[in-house]
Structures are given as structure tokens and as C-alpha cells.
């Protein structure tokens, strides 16, 4: 009983402010005749319309591109991170180049990506990968380089097989940092997918936004904006669930570190 009560209180503390904000928006905009700030009631009905009529044509492509871009980012980021983290000379050789390349904002690659991949999904996925794989890469390298020497001593003295060493020691040991990197990538990915849809695109939530703004359909523009917010929020929730499961040991460990270690 106590835990369900605790959970509902936690939920309440999390949702009260958004509810109040929406209510305020609703009331303040109710009588609005401004072209740019239509009543929220109208925006909501447009959200329904956009979701029902343009799910397959625009929302799904956005989600697919985002998902593909993030998956590729994570795979490349972790794989390259492993290589660079485990082979120090390689890291020393690549570090200056990496620092330079990651300083380039992902969106700055739009022109070249347009040229190389055209205006289709490939271009959008490429933009996301280029912008979002850095945090995964850098955090993986940091995580691996930060592994306790004692853990490495244990692995060597017990002749742990290379595959077990990689999958059961190195990756889990670095996982808190890898996951922190992925979390940054997810938010970068959402930014980049929208940005890529603003440029020479024919589909996507960002495209709906741009098009409706051009046609002075501000209610649709706001509806797409709300959808983007919801999309970002849901991806974060999904991420938190995964993180919660994967890093249970890490929370437990920190719990005892703060508490009663002798």
C-alpha cells in the first residue's frame, strides 16, 4: 500500500506543473484572435488531426529516421570507443582529431550531407549519426579508460577469456558512462532530426511545422511543436526505463558507498 501511495505522490509531483501550465495556456488563449497564438483548444484538435491523417506520411518517417540514426550512433560510438579505449596508443593518435571534429556542430554538416545523400532519409540519418555519436564515443572511451586497475588485475590473474573480459567486465564497468552518453545523444538526435527536416525535406514533423508556418496555419504549427515535445519526453521516459534496469547494480553500489561502508 505504502509503495503505491509513494508512487502516486511521485507521479503527482511530476505532473502538477505541466497540468497547471496547460490550463493557464488554455484559459489565456481561449479568446485569442491572434494569428500567431491560436486558442489551445484549436491546437489540440489539430494535434488529433495531424496524428490521424499524417502519422504514416510524416510522424513515422521522423521516428524511423531518429531511431535508425540513434541506433547507428550507439553501435558506431560504442565500437569505436571500445577500440580507442582499449588501445591507448590509438587514442593518443586520434585524440586531437576527435576533439576537433566533435567541436563541429552536427547541423553544420547539412550542406555537405545534402550534397552527398540528397534530401531523403539517408541524409537525415547521416546528420543524426554525425551529430549524436560523439557523446557515446567520448563517454565510452572515458568509461573504459577509467576502469579500476584492480579490476584489470583480477581479469588477468584469473585468465578471463577475451570475449568474457569484453562483455562481462569492460562493457558493464563502462556502462554507467556509456548510458550517460546515449542520453545526451537522444536529445541531440531530436534536435537534429527536426533541423534536417527544415532543410529541403518532403516529410517529417519538422516539415509539417515549416510548411504550416509558411501557409499561416499557425494552429498546425503549434500542434507539431507539441508533438515534438511529447516525442522528446517519451523518448526520455523510455530511456529512463532502460537505464533503470541496466544500472540497478550501480545505484545499489552507490547506495552502500554513501551509507554504511566500514
Amino acid at each position: 500500500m505504502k509503495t503505491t501511495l509513494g508512487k502516486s505522490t511521485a507521479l503527482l509531483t511530476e505532473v502538477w506543473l505541466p497540468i497547471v501550465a496547460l490550463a493557464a495556456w488554455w484559459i489565456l488563449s481561449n479568446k485569442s484572435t491572434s494569428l500567431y497564438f491560436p486558442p489551445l483548444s484549436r491546437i489540440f484538435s489539430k494535434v488529433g488531426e495531424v496524428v490521424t491523417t499524417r502519422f504514416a506520411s510524416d510522424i513515422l518517417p521522423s521516428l524511423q529516421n531518429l531511431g535508425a540514426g540513434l541506433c547507428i550512433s550507439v553501435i558506431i560510438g560504442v565500437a569505436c570507443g571500445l577500440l580507442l579505449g582499449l588501445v591507448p596508443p590509438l587514442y593518443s593518435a586520434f585524440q586531437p582529431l576527435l576533439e576537433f571534429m566533435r567541436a563541429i556542430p552536427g547541423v553544420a554538416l547539412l550542406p555537405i550531407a545534402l550534397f552527398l545523400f540528397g534530401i531523403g532519409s539517408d541524409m537525415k540519418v547521416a546528420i543524426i549519426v554525425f551529430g549524436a555519436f560523439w557523446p557515446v564515443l567520448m563517454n565510452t572511451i572515458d568509461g573504459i579508460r577509467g576502469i579500476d586497475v584492480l579490476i584489470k588485475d583480477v581479469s588477468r590473474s584469473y585468465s578471463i577469456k577475451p570475449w568474457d573480459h569484453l562483455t562481462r567486465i569492460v562493457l558493464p564497468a563502462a556502462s554507467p558512462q556509456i548510458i550517460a552518453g546515449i542520453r545526451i545523444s537522444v536529445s541531440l538526435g531530436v534536435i537534429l532530426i527536426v533541423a534536417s527536416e527544415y532543410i529541403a525535406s518532403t516529410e517529417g514533423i519538422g516539415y509539417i511545422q515549416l510548411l504550416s508556418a509558411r501557409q499561416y496555419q499557425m494552429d498546425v504549427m503549434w500542434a507539431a511543436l507539441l508533438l515534438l515535445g511529447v516525442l522528446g519526453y517519451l523518448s526520455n521516459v523510455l530511456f529512463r526505463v532502460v537505464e533503470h534496469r541496466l544500472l540497478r547494480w550501480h545505484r545499489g553500489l552507490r547506495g552502500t558507498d554513501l551509507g554504511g561502508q566500514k
Partner: protein
Amino acid sequence: MTEITATRSKTGLPTLTAQALSKTYGSGQNARQVLGDISFDVYDHETVCIVGPSGAGKTTLLRCLAGLMPSTSGSVYIGTEKVVGPPRRMAVVFQDYSRSLMPWMTVEANVELPLRGRPGLTAADRRHRAQTALASVGLENSAKLHPWQLSGGMQQRVAIARALAYEPDVLLMDEPFASVDAQTRSDLEDLTHTIKAKYGVTILLVTHDISESVYLADRVIVLSGTPTSVTEIVPIDLPSPRDQITTKSTPEFAELRGRILGLVRRHQPATTSTAEPANGSLMKGPDLG
């Protein structure tokens, strides 16, 4: 192979041999010799303790013996084989138990990990071996927990179980009981006697606690000086089985402890006029236990 004959003794070939080991950290200006010319033998089924003050280089010596770090000169043999990397016949229990177990794995998985991929061992065999090892350290009911859910003493017992499941001929232990409370410590000392009797493993245990070394060992190797070298090897002829209360209250025990303390003290840099203040850690006296 020819060198080793020199260390041959009446009791046969030693299980573990350290031959003129020395270790210098750094090079050039920053070179710092920690170990200087350390030689000793450990024979089959023996328990040998190495005592030396904090910072003497005990961990350094143990890492050289375990093949985790090359020595600057000299060599280590396990049987007649020269140690060039971590030998399969050796298992190590590290000083810092809270860092030597994998926190993302259960106790059971920690113990099984070194057995994975060993030829002729099925998953069921592994599990069985892990369970036996955990039972022999009294942790059969904690197999599904994570290390951080256990007390310090229990974590070190998991580390011991992991070493036992590995079925080594030689067990190296680096100050295994240094960071647990006194009661747990004496329990773990007795556990060491028990597993020794049960597994017949040869044990080389490093400690800075002189009482502990006398209580556990057949022989005590006393390290001191800068750079550290073997001052004396003291045979401990106390009868077995030993007991925390009766053994530790015999006059023989007190005499041996006093003798070793004297040996360690005599070579303390603090008592010599040439001691440098920078060597603060070396000045700390050993625990009286």
C-alpha cells in the same frame, strides 16, 4: 632450469620460488627502488606469511609473484616454470575486496566467471563448483545477492570462494583481512586454516599484522629496509590445529611475535639517523595485532 637446482632443498622442489627479485618504479631522476634482491621458496602445502610495514612494497612483491607486473630483475618460478604472466596454477585474493569483485554480477556469477570457457567444464559443473566453494566459506545462502549487498567480511569471503573455485595450487593473498573489524578478522583467519586443511592449497599471505602472521604461518618472511629485502625467515613451530584463544595465549606465541616485531623494528627507517622525512609511510610501525 639450471638455476633452479640451486634452490632445491631436502623437502623437494619448491612450489613457488622468488629468485633475486628487485623492482624499481620509474626511471632516471624519478627512479625509486622499492624491492631489492628478494629471494625465498614456498613448499607444497605450506602457509607462508610475508610481514613488512605499510608501504614496504608488499603489494608490489605480490604483483610480481602473480605475474601481473614484470620485476626489474630476478625471476619467479612456479614449480619449474618461469612466471612470465599470470599462471593458471595460481589464484589471487586482493587487498581491497570492495574493488576486486564485479558489482554488476551476483556473488555466484563472480565466482563462476574465471571458470567460463575452461575446457571440459559445463555450465552445470561451473555452478556446482561455485556452490561448493561458496559453501566452504559459509556463503551458500548469498549466491544470488550482489557483492554490495554484503558486509565487508562476506565480500572478502566471496573473493576467497572465487579463488578456491579456480582450484589453484598456490593461493596468494594480499592483506586479505586488513580492512575488516577484529571479530570478522579472527573468523577469517580461522577460515584460512579450514580451507587450507580442506583444499590442501599452498598459501602465501601478505600482512602487516604480526600476530596474524604468527597465527597463520608455518614460516614468516620478514621484510624491511629501504629498498625492501628479506631480513629473516622465521619458522613457526606452533602445533596444529591452532586456536584463537589457546594458541595466542601460549608463551611460544608471544615469544615469536616479540621476535618478529624486533626484526621489523630494527630496520625501521625511523630508528636510523639517515631517514628522510619524505618516506613517511615507511616510518609507520607495523600493527601489534
